[in-house]
C-alpha cells in the first residue's frame, strides 16, 4: 500500500531537493531521480513523480536530451572506430560504447559482419554502469537478431529522451497516424535517436517534421497536423 504522504505527491511535479517521503516507510523502492538523504527520500531531478503499483517502485519522469546508458536499453549508435575484435560506437553519452564483432546472430571468427565507420547500428545495451564504458550486443537475449544490426540508408535525427520513450509505447498515436498515410520503417533508440527509412524521400521529411512537432501536442491535435504537413 502507498504511504499516505507520498501518495499525495505521485503524478505531481517535483523539484530537486523536494522531500517525497521518509525512510521509515520500509515498503518503498526508489528508482531514477530519487536518493536517500539522511532520513528523507528526496528528488534529485525536476519532473513528475511516478509510482508503479505492480513493482512498488517510485521514480521521477523527466525529459532531458543527454542519454545516460542503462542496461537493456535499445539504442542507435554511430560507428566511430573499428578494431579487429570490436567496434566503438558513439551513443551520445559521456563515454563511447563497445560492440564486439561476434555479438551478431550467426557470427563466427570466420564469418564476421563488415560494418564501416560512420554507419548506424541498432543494438541493445548489455552492460552499463558508471565505472565502465558501456557494452552493446546486436542480438536479443535468445541470440537471434530480432531487428538489431546495421541500419542501411534512411535518415537519423536526434530528439529528447521523453519523445523517444513516447514513440516506443505500444499505443503511440503519431506513428499509428503516419502509418495510415505512408509506408516507412522506423527505429527508435532510447538514447534520443530516431531512424526513418522510406522509398520516397518526401515521406522521410514529412515523417520527421510530424514526429518533432508531435512532442508538445495533444493526441486530438495530431491528425490535423499530419494532414497539413502531408499536403
Amino acid at each position, binding site marked *: 500500500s502507498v504511504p499516505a504522504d507520498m501518495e499525495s505527491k505521485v503524478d505531481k511535479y517535483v*523539484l*530537486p*531537493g*523536494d*522531500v517525497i517521503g521518509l525512510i521509515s516507510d520500509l515498503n518503498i523502492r526508489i528508482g531514477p*531521480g530519487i*536518493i536517500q*538523504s539522511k532520513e528523507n527520500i*528526496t528528488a*534529485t*531531478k*525536476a*519532473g513528475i513523480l511516478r509510482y508503479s503499483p505492480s513493482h512498488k517502485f517510485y521514480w521521477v519522469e*523527466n*525529459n*532531458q*536530451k*543527454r542519454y*545516460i546508458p542503462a542496461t537493456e536499453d535499445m539504442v542507435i549508435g554511430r560507428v566511430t572506430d573499428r578494431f579487429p575484435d570490436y567496434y566503438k560506437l558513439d551513443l551520445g553519452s*559521456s*563515454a*563511447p560504447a563497445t560492440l564486439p564483432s561476434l555479438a551478431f546472430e550467426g557470427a563466427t571468427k570466420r564469418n564476421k559482419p563488415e560494418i564501416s565507420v560512420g554507419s548506424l547500428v541498432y543494438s541493445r545495451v548489455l552492460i552499463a554502469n*558508471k*565505472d565502465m564504458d558501456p557494452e552493446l550486443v546486436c542480438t536479443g537475449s535468445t541470440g537471434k537478431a530480432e531487428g538489431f544490426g546495421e541500419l542501411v540508408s534512411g535518415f537519423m535525427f536526434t530528439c529528447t529522451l521523453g519523445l523517444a520513450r513516447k514513440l516506443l509505447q505500444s499505443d503511440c498515436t503519431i506513428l499509428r497516424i503516419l502509418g495510415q498515410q505512408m509506408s516507412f520503417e522506423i527505429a527508435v533508440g532510447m538514447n534520443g535517436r530516431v531512424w526513418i527509412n522510406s522509398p520516397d524521400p518526401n515521406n522521410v521529411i514529412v515523417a520527421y517534421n510530424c514526429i518533432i512537432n508531435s512532442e508538445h501536442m495533444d493526441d486530438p491535435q495530431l491528425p490535423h497536423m499530419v494532414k497539413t504537413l502531408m499536403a
Partner: protein
Amino acid sequence: FVCSNMSRVEYLTPEGYRLDGRKATELRRIKSRLGVFSRADGSAYIEQGNTKVIVAVYGPREAAIRSKSKHDHAVINVEFTQAPFATGDRKKKGKSDRRTIEDSLLIKQTFESVVLTSLYPRSQIDLYIQILQSDGSVLAASINAATLALIDAGIPMRDMLCACTAGVLNGTPVLDINYIEQNAGGPELPVAVLPHSGGVVLLEMNSRVPLDLFERLSKLACDGAKAVYNLLQSE
C-alpha cells in the same frame, strides 16, 4: 574638521524606499525561461530586475582533457563571462581576467557540492554563464540561472541552489542590491543556500563589517535566497 554632505544621494529614504522604489527587504522581479538553446543539453535565462544572465549546460560528456578527469566523479567546468555590452560603458573583459577566474572557480566549487557528481565518473559537466546585462547581484543571478539550467539538463542535484545578495544602505540591511547601490560603497554579501536544509553553500564578502551587522546581513541574505526559491518554484 567639518564634514558636509551637500550632494548625498538618498539610497534609502526615511519612509523606507530605495532609488528604484523598493522597500529594504524587497526582491526585484524575477523572470526565467528554460531551454533557450536547442543545441545545449540544458539552458536557462534569468532576469532579476535589470540583471540578465544566460547559462548553457553541456554534459555529462566525455572529458576533453584526460588528465583533468577524475576516476570517481565528474568534473564541473565553469566559464563565467560578461558581454561587452553588459554595463553602461562597453568593455571587453578577457577570459583570463583575474576577477573572472575567481568568480568561475567560486561557482564551480559551489555547484560541486550540490551536483551528484559521483554518478558520472571520468566525465565533465560544462557550465557556460554569460551576463547579458549587469545591474548588480550578478553572482547571485548567475547561480540561480545555473541551477535552472542544470535542472533543464536533467543533471541530478541534492537541492535547488538559490542565491541572493544583501547589502547595507544608510545603515540599514537591504536585499538584492542593484548596480547603483553596489557602487554606494557599502558591504556586499552574496549568499547561496540550499532551501530545504537551510545550509549555506556560498558566502562571499570583500569588505569589513562589525559582527552583529554581519549576523543580520547573512540572515537577511539567507531569507532572501529562500524567497528566491519560492519564486522560482512557483514558476
